[in-house]
């Protein structure tokens, strides 16, 4: 019997009217069977004419006789497929003019010497052969890349990158009245003096917010240069606390009300934590960068299912708290920007919570670094820096970012002290009627545990406070729905089944917040040592001794070509050895962005 739909009225698939598929929708495609020229490729021995050769990535472990099959793919010399077949990924083709190409244009504009109107009065110029010009161009490029001249390096940076970079760094935000300036004690630059605290703010930057973002991520990275230790304090976005001058609000709203300055002041006045610098990251920047490098190829370790993924990028104009469902198939596959972000951000996709998430992040980082390790990345550096523009801002100067990231790269990730102020440091509650966010689900800080914890992590001593309520020390804080069970003070991160700082205004299914019966210790199935594609053993030279100015004064000027060139020189010189280190500072900026996106320092 034929299927019912063969005979009866049909419900035609309305292709055009379907909503786009998250992360995969490429729009209507045109089938071009037989159209266009089949791109030719270097011919290997015994190979079929024109068929592309196997790229040089792998070699079979069963080498067979040449020409066993009438095709040269296996036995022919490697020729990267990318040279022959345009994949057309987003961002492909953006690049800098090659030296040779420039020379060609000059020759054409000059015209043939024989047509010189001055005729025989001028000696006929002998044009240099093409091969000679290519060699010279290559040598010039080589000299520049090898750091043959700080001026050349600096010129490259200034010409191609400084515009974007300058819109990212040195973005000073004046401190509010009543806010202290801890930078006044930093007389010799970052990491050369006392402890520094950096407020890492992360916002979804979708157009639904129309430029009025809130900060879903509020992390304080605290660095003690003398002891070479780093701590990372994550404060849940829904912490219901006093926002100076605006009463009780969720912490994430402080950024929406008063931007960086108010977020910074809130942290300082409510918890006594001085903030030296800030860095703000927009999630769409990650998507743009991944797309810029053509996506990443990742072996998805297991099926990713999540019914409560925050739908906070893309087009979702009316509901900033929308949810999205995820289903990512397991196995090796190509992920574009949105899919890669989903893969690394999902907190509900496995039982091992943040550990599983960390493993996924490392996979994507490794894949991204593989893309960045391609020398062709120089053609995209300017575009990548441009992608970061508008999605990453900091009041640190570029040399400070470079030094900070070099410092972080030298750390043992396993020794970074991480503390999330989830349960038992806080508990679920409801904002009281009559005030801001009335009736909304909020997170109530547990000051008895928070104060000793931040005292220890940030070495605050008696400066650690918990002034989370308006006017006093917690008397007006609404009662939590559940009473937290105080535990012994500890700086170890409690591991709820799903981290409580998942952006969610709508409460999720009760199961996600229910007590978890299973252990969440580190599973042994994953290798925790992810190979690093960047050199991490050779710290970059600290090339500048320019004193840091207080952020309330004129920001320091790092336009000095010698300083930047010195910072860049080692990294650029290592490009030709296959080790792209800092990419004129863009790598450090990328890492800063990834720290905010992944809410982790483990991005190197």
């Amino acid at each position, binding site marked *: 019997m034929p*299927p*019912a*739909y063969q005979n009866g009225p*049909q*419900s035609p*698939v309305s292709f055009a009217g*379907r909503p*786009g*598929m998250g992360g*995969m*929708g*490429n729009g*209507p*495609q*045109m089938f*071009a*069977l037989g159209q*266009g*020229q*089949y*791109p*030719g490729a270097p011919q290997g021995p015994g190979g*079929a*004419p*024109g*068929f592309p050769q196997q*790229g040089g990535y*792998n070699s*079979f*472990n069963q080498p*067979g006789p040449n020409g066993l*099959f009438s*095709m040269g*793919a296996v036995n022919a010399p490697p020729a990267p*497929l*990318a040279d022959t*077949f345009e*994949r057309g990924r987003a961002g492909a083709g953006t690049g800098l003019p090659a030296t040779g190409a420039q020379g060609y244009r000059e020759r054409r504009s000059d015209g043939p010497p024989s047509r010189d109107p001055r005729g025989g009065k001028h000696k006929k110029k002998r044009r240099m052969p093409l091969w000679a010009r290519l060699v010279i161009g290559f040598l010039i490029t080589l000299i520049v890349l090898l750091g043959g001249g700080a001026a050349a390096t600096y010129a490259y940076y200034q010409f191609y990158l400084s515009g974007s970079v300058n819109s990212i760094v040195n973005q000073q935000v004046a401190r509010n009245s009543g806010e202290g300036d801890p930078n006044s004690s930093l007389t010799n630059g970052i990491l050369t003096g006392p402890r520094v605290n950096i407020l890492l703010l992360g916002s979804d930057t979708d157009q639904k917010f129309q430029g009025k973002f809130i900060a879903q991520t509020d992390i304080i990275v605290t660095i003690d240069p003398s002891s070479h230790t780093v701590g990372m304090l994550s404060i849940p976005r829904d912490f219901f606390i006093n926002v100076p001058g605006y009463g009780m609000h969720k912490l994430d709203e402080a950024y929406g009300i008063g931007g960086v300055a108010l977020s910074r002041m809130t942290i300082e006045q409510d918890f006594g934590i001085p903030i030296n610098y800030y860095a703000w990251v927009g999630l769409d920047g990650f998507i743009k960068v991944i797309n810029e490098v053509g996506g990443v190829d990742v072996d998805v370790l297991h*099926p990713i*299912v*999540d*019914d409560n993924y925050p739908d906070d990028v893309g087009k979702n104009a009316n509901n900033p708290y929308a*949810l*999205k*469902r995820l*289903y990512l*198939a397991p196995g*090796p596959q*190509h992920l574009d920007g949105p899919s890669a972000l989903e893969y690394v951000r999902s907190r509900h*996709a*496995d*039982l*091992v919570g943040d550990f599983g998430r960390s493993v996924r992040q490392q996979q994507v980082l490794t894949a991204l670094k593989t893309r960045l390790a391609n020398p062709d990345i120089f053609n995209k550096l300017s575009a990548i820096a441009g992608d970061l523009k508008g999605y990453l801002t900091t009041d640190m100067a570029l040399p400070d970012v470079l030094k900070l990231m070099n410092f972080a790269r030298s750390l043992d990730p396993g020794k970074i002290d991480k503390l999330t102020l989830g349960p038992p440091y806080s508990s679920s509650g409801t904002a009281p009627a009559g005030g801001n966010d009335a009736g909304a689900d909020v997170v109530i800080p547990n000051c008895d545990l928070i104060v000793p914890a931040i005292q220890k992590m940030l070495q605050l001593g008696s400066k650690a406070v918990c002034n989370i309520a308006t006017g006093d020390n917690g008397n007006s804080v609404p009662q939590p729905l559940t009473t937290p069970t105080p535990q012994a003070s500890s700086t170890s991160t409690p591991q709820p089944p799903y981290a409580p700082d998942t952006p969610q205004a*709508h*409460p999720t*299914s009760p199961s*996600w917040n229910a007590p978890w019966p299973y*252990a*969440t210790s580190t599973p*042994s199935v994953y290798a925790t040592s992810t190979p690093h594609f960047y050199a991490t053993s050779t710290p970059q030279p600290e090339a500048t001794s320019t004193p840091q100015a207080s952020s309330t004064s004129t920001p320091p000027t790092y336009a000095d070509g010698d300083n930047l060139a010195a910072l860049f020189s080692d990294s650029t010189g290592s490009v030709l050895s296959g080790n792209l280190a800092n990419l004129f500072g863009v790598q450090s900026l990328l890492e800063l962005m990834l720290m905010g996106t992944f809410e982790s320092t483990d991005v190197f």
Partner: protein
Amino acid sequence: MYSRGKIQFMKRTTFSWSTLLLLALLALSVQGCLGIGGSNQKSIGTGSGGQQVSVNQDVFKGKFYLTISHNLYVLSGNNTSQELVNTGNVVDPAVSPDGKWVAFIQKYKQYSDLSVVSTSGGRAHVLRSGAGKFYPVGPFMHNSFVWYAQPAWSADGSTLLFLSDLEKEDWYAHTTDAPMLDMQVFSIPFNNPQATPKDVAYASFGDGGNRDASYRPGHTNQIIYTHYTYDSATRTKQEIQLFMENPTTISKHPGVYYPGMPGTGFDPGIAITPTNVEIIEPAFSPDGSSIAYVKRNATNISLDVMPAPPDNITATPNDPKTEQQALQAYQTQSSHLLTQLYVQEPAWSPDGTQIAYFLYTGNSFDLWIANLTRDAAGKYSVKGSPVQVTSGGVDGESHPVWTN
């Protein structure tokens, strides 16, 4: 004059030779491009600025159904390669045994549809739609969206297996008070796709569920699938194994079996690979006697083959003796075919003498073919050098189907 004429002559001569040489090279190039001569290659594009994939049609017989840029294609060795569905959201094609239909999945933001299209093209038909909506339940947000994935046909074409989370709200009692989001295996009759799906294979909670379900050729009462779960001792270590099962056991014994984690769930599945290796993507040989699969560990991924376990193992699930017996074929008779970066998604040729798979080469996933040979003990190995079928990239997460 002479001098000038000589110069002109010489110029003409030079021009002629270089032009001839150029034309000859151009002709050779065009010949290769157009598939004239000894090679039969097809260029498949997916629109301006999109992916362009070339297919070497000389190196295989029959047809491949696969997706490129999430559009459905059929690649043919007889120069009839074509695009069947171009909605840009297609995954998981599966061809009916009679070769008339392709079942596939169309994936949207919140859900997916199980659809079917004729192998000769035309309009696609939705068999089951996963469309739904979010709705509040007290203070909590639930939804009625459903995922469908990986359809697979029974040998007679009457039944479709598929993966879904369609019972996600139904198993709170057995899944630690949580919706069963993990994908489980269900079946529907092809001629009545709106019928209530039958439960075929349950998932364990928490690691994504089952994948790669398919019937065993020649055995109407056996299926195979990949099962993702966590170990029963710590609930932190992934266990990724192949399971076999009688697809009718659950539906014939209502109320007996239920999903859950190891030690809490109870289902008729029986593992045919051990817990200490990650085995995924099983593919039965056309005669149902062998299973190709992908073995994954921390350092590499390989393509291997094992004989199918004895027929009777699915008749007595949850029996310790049977469980031991089911593992023996893997432990004693598996054979290694090749190890390559991201080798995946094996598919046997219709005559069982070749195997196709995806490899990651040149920054893209592409289709390759290897000839197989079998020794006296029945173990498989690759004969000669594998050959590349596509260049430019196919969708790695969506398996290929090889038909006559």
